[in-house]
């Protein structure tokens, strides 16, 4: 067994394969030292059972100021600003989360199905009008989640296009840190204006609801909540759609499983299990905790690998194979514990609509370039494809 620490970030071994160093840990090495971007030494865990127990353990904190910054710029992070509850612990986390959970229930999200179907058809019409080949990320995978979240938040029509462009800027490969900062400030400024507008003229949408329902949230809190929903909901869903389409095109015999209304739900869960979109999340020990026979000291950070936990042979037989018909329940693609994805029911509905609609409209859909030429988001925090050139028989 090697004692050299692994170093974050670890590159995925391919479009559908988590980092090979972490996959190798499944052979009897459930915890390993990991060097974080700020130079600190932490740990990484990969078993599904360990990942779930760390994420459910209140002795492990999600407070962002306790852990290193994952982005390549490194450096330490300030405490989460008011409203950004993804980086807080209970009771602060619970206070904010409970204000939003009513908006993201299974029932409410299913009620959006018809509207999302309509959005998907509109974007498919545009694709058809443009004619092959097109970049599926720019024409379909990115705009649908962006439109949905804009409608949910209540971003008025006339701003959506510009706003969508700004948000897309955030994940541009070649942007300088200054450009990124400028885009970020632009988005926050716009959301701040939107919040003030909602206060003067409340509307029937998420932000409108939050300003009037007496929750006592400040403009700053509301702006940050909106920003967090955008940050957490856009790249994730967009990359599931982009990389998911690549996976389906690589396994065309399974496409009928996802276009069949009786099996689409399970097919989506299997794509969530199989694709390594979110590489993991971090928790910091508040006291010494035993994990897999190792003492994680107070102050040390543990990275939980969600993709490798989703390939745990203890739970999933033949875990490295995509099988849209398998029993998928219990995957951890949305995390676990009190931070488990707030938007998961929305993401599910978007995928249940968008994948079948795409393959029904273009049954002959295929890659327009060899698979090796599809640019992977290796350097981004959320994995996926930058572009997906596709074509079809007209």
């Amino acid at each position, binding site marked *: 067994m090697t004692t050299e620490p692994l170093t974050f970030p670890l590159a995925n071994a391919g479009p559908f394969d988590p980092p090979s160093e972490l996959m190798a840990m499944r052979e009897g090495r459930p915890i390993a030292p990991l060097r974080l971007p700020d130079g600190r030494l932490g740990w990484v865990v990969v078993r599904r059972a360990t990942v779930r127990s760390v994420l459910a353990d209140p002795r492990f904190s999600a407070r962002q100021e306790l852990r290193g910054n994952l982005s390549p710029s490194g450096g330490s992070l300030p405490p989460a600003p008011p409203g950004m509850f993804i980086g807080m612990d209970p009771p602060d986390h619970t206070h904010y989360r409970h204000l939003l*959970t009513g908006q993201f229930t299974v029932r409410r999200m299913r009620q959006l199905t018809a509207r999302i179907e309509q959005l998907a058809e509109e974007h498919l019409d545009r694709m058809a009008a443009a004619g092959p080949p097109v970049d599926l990320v720019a024409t379909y995978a990115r705009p649908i989640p962006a439109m949905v979240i804009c409608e949910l938040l209540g971003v008025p029509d006339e701003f959506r296009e510009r706003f969508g462009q700004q948000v897309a800027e955030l994940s541009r490969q070649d942007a300088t840190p200054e450009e990124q900062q400028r885009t970020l400030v632009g988005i926050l400024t716009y959301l701040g204006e939107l919040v003030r507008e909602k206060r003067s003229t409340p509307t029937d949408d998420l932000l409108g609801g939050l300003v009037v329902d007496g929750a006592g949230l400040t403009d700053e809190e509301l702006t940050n909540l909106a920003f967090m929903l955008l940050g957490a909901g856009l790249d994730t869903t967009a990359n599931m759609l982009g990389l998911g389409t690549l996976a389906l095109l690589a396994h065309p015999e399974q496409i009928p499983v996802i276009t069949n209304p009786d099996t689409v739900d399970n097919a989506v869960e299997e794509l969530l299990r199989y694709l390594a979109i979110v590489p993991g999340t971090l928790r910091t020990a508040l006291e010494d905790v035993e994990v897999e026979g190792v003492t994680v000291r107070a102050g040390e950070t543990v990275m939980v690998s969600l993709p490798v936990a989703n390939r745990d042979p203890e739970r999933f037989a033949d875990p490295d194979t995509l099988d849209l018909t398998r029993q998928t329940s219990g995957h951890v693609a949305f995390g676990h514990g009190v931070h488990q994805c707030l938007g998961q029911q929305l993401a599910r509905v978007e995928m249940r609509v968008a994948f079948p609609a795409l393959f029904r409209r273009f049954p002959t859909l295929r890659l327009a370039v060899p698979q090796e030429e599809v640019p992977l988001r290796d350097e981004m925090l959320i994995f996926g494809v930058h572009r997906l050139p596709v074509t079809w028989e007209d």
Partner: protein
Amino acid sequence: MAEIRADREVCVGAGMCALTAPELFDQDDEDGRVVVLVTRPEAELRERAREAVRLCPSGALSLSEEA
């Protein structure tokens, strides 16, 4: 008799229960937190109840099983 208990203060409204066992669980329309529809599930629904308890991310659910 098996009995489902739900702690609404702990619940984070993730909806895994309503997704996994819609016959047993719903979510409150206002706050998104769990609503138990059937407190004492029939034998044939008990495995679904157990699965929902296992999948609940926050530990809000429990099933007491007496012989």
